[in-house]
């Protein structure tokens, strides 16, 4: 716990503000670059069809209670019978998504582009910050923290006597990187915020497995307990009317 450090105003004018502005501008640039690079490939008809079937089955499951039991049973058989139901995936025909990816180079290419558009600007910015602004205190967070945060906030300064709430410029970069996400979702719209998470999902899962979601939907449809809502609706209407009248 040393006494307060006096920071040069030049640090504010030439490090703190430029760094934040550059981070925001790079975020915007990245958004537009990835938008330009996104190849609008024609989606595979089979995949679209499977997705639509899943959506239809989900709608049926959600609205099951609004149709008579007979109609519901007919629809369920249409979706999930074992011979030619729409949700039924024959064994062995389920395609491995990894194999699918290798057979289709476009998919891998697209994913690589997406990853590159994320990694390259980050690496460049980090190198820029490291080269110009390394090794001094740039900011101070307005609340006290424990010693554990030292490695997080004073990345690049090896002094154990400086108070933990002083932030080195490299760590200010990291704070910006994580904290500006909210601002980006405000100025660039929802698309940007979801894009990152989707990218994460794609990186971990390598696309989604259509046959798996089909069979999951089939199981869900099979265990639906049907209970027709219409007989009770008279009582419900009666209650509403009574409340209106009374």
């Amino acid at each position, binding site marked *: 716990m040393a006494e307060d450090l006096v920071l040069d105003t030049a640090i*504010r004018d030439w490090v*703190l503000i430029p760094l934040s502005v550059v981070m925001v501008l790079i975020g915007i640039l990245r958004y537009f670059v990835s938008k330009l690079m996104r190849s609008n490939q024609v989606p595979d008809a089979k995949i679209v069809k499977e997705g639509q079937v899943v959506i239809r089955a989900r709608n049926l499951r959600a609205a099951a209670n609004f149709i008579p039991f007979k109609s519901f049973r007919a629809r369920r058989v249409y979706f999930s019978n074992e011979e030619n139901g729409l949700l039924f995936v024959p064994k062995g025909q389920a395609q491995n998504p990894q194999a699918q990816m290798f057979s289709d180079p476009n998919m891998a290419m697209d994913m690589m582009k997406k990853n590159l558009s994320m990694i390259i600007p980050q690496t460049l910015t980090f190198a820029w910050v490291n080269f110009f602004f390394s090794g001094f205190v740039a900011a101070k967070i307005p609340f006290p923290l424990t010693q554990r945060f030292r490695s997080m906030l004073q990345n690049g300064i090896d002094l154990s006597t400086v108070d933990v709430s002083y932030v080195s410029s490299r760590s200010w970069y990291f*704070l910006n990187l994580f904290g500006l*996400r*909210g601002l980006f979702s*405000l100025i660039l719209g929802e698309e940007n915020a979801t894009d990152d998470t989707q990218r994460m999902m794609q990186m971990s899962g390598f696309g989604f497995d259509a046959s798996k979601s089909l069979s999951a939907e089939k199981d869900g449809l099979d265990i639906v307990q049907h209970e027709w809502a219409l007989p009770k*609706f008279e009582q419900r209407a009666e209650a509403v009317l009574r409340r209106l009248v009374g």
Partner: protein
Amino acid sequence: MAGNGVSGASGKKSSDMNDLPTFSAEKLQSNMKVIYYSRTFLSIIGGVIAGILGFTGLTGFILYFLVMAVTSVGLIAKARFSVHSYFDCWNRVILDGFVSGLMSFVLFWTFAYDIVHIF
């Protein structure tokens, strides 16, 4: 705080057992998005205010809680105090976007505080 998605949800608790949850998922999602936007926006504004006023330590976080509480009240007022016809449960209005807003709040708080007070 545009309550553009008026969901046709009738999740009102009636006295009988016949309360079927009838939600329109898209409308519900749109409402959630409105909550997220208003929270993010207000946490950024709150952070700048806290920084300019020079709050440090606990007072800043108290300001954050106050801002979030005001947001919740505003959202509930926007929903004309019938939360259940717009959202499926109370926690959505009160807790959603709380943690993600905190990060933006801390960043802008630090930024404004440093610019105004430190140098």
